């Protein structure tokens, strides 16, 4: 099959099956800043696809995972078991580094309600959205500031872009970015998922991570451990997300109700100076409403 259009942004290649339509940059809109965030963090200004890949499937519609990736209400409930188990874990027990990264992430998922409510969530045309980062545990993001690995990394980044620009790059605080309808990535953590619908009730995710050439190798190992906790098939976190998608799917297939409510925050979403629509609070479902607006536009052929 010939793909009528291909284009790249910061080295990420996209293909379009439509001969005509918005250009890649028009389509991505403000989501380009998330690609910038991911690439700018590298001391060499480039990323290397590394670490292989892993694939997982769930028995549910592809929309469910996209609705989840910017959802900030579910972690305290869906991930309650891993939050509790991680909180009770003694840090005196040996780790080779991988377990420590995963346990920090699980504990962070138990952040208090106020942290989630105060997060930013922004949406743009074509169903895209991103959310602010919720990591109050700074060490969970990139090791403690005085950690030798972190010091070496900052020095390498500043050597290329200067101290001021390095500080600007590192101050960006963003978690999941959803490029509707088939891409989701964590710019700060160098994690990327491609969402592949296999059937109306079956979806595959392909997970990739990246190495920052010029950064300490330990940061790559931490990215691998982070990938395993957020996307690993046997992750203590992801398994409860997948179970939830499957339960939602069964609920949707039942004759239990005609409507699904996605009204959290409705009426309070407000235009942002950037031109995006921002949820009034971090738990607004503005991203879900935005996804369905894009879906309806495509399905009805509206311009």
């Amino acid at each position: 099959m010939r793909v009528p259009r291909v284009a790249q942004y910061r080295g990420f290649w996209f293909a379009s099956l439509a001969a005509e339509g918005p250009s890649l940059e028009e389509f991505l809109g403000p989501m380009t800043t998330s690609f910038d965030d991911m690439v700018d963090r590298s001391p060499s200004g480039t990323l290397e696809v590394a670490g292989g890949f892993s694939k997982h499937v769930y028995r549910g519609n592809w929309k469910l995972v996209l609705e989840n990736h910017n959802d900030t209400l579910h972690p305290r409930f869906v991930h309650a078991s891993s939050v509790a188990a991680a909180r009770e874990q003694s840090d005196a027990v040996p780790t080779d580094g991988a377990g420590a990264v995963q346990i920090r992430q699980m504990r962070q998922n138990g952040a208090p309600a106020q942290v989630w409510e105060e997060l930013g969530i922004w949406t743009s045309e074509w169903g895209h959205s991103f959310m602010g980062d919720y990591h109050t545990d700074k060490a969970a993001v990139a090791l403690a500031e005085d950690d030798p690995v972190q010091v070496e990394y900052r020095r390498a980044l500043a050597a290329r872009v200067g101290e001021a620009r390095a500080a600007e790059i590192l101050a960006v605080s963003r978690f999941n970015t959803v490029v509707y309808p088939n891409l989701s990535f964590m710019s700060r953590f160098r994690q990327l998922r491609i969402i592949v619908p296999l059937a109306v009730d079956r979806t595959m995710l392909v997970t990739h991570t990246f190495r920052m050439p010029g950064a300490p190798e330990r940061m790559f190992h931490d990215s691998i451990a982070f990938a395993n906790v957020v996307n690993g098939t046997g992750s203590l976190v992801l398994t409860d997300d997948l179970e939830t998608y499957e339960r939602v799917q069964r609920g949707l297939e039942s004759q239990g109700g005609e409507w699904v409510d996605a009204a959290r925050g409705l009426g309070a979403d407000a235009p942002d100076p950037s031109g995006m629509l921002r949820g009034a609070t971090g738990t607004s479902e503005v991203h879900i409403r935005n996804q369905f607006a894009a879906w309806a536009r495509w399905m009805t052929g509206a311009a």
Partner: protein
Amino acid sequence: MDAAAATIADPFAFVLHECDLLDRWRLQEWLSLWAEECSYWVPALPGQESPHDALSHIYDDRRLLETRVRRFAHAMFHAQKPPSRTVRFATNLRVVEQPGAALSVLCSLQVAEFRNGLHRSYLGHCRYDLLRGGAGGLLIRRKRFELIDCDAPQEGISIIL
């Protein structure tokens, strides 16, 4: 430490005992089979050499392994409501002697799982790197289970393989 577990000196009996404890959900006893520094690994790519250089389905060090076990006791472990029933077959066992007190057991392992009306089967090559504990019994230093379809899409793995 569980006294019975730490005194199993025969490597084949030890592996079968490990499988049996998992099938019977005796997880605290199962945890006592592990050395203080250990790893439990289900790679995502065939022949993967390091768990730190590539993504895995599961990679636990001792600290994470304890957390994994603890989670099973939590009322909101949704992916284990209802809990799985499992049965394991470890066959074609052979011992590879290693320098010092350590030895490895290689086997073909199948884990059959039934949960929520669905059957799943995990099939692959498993390697146990074992240590001799103080009482002469064996302890697991590393368990590496490479599924024959590890690079194919997997559904959520909520049990211990």
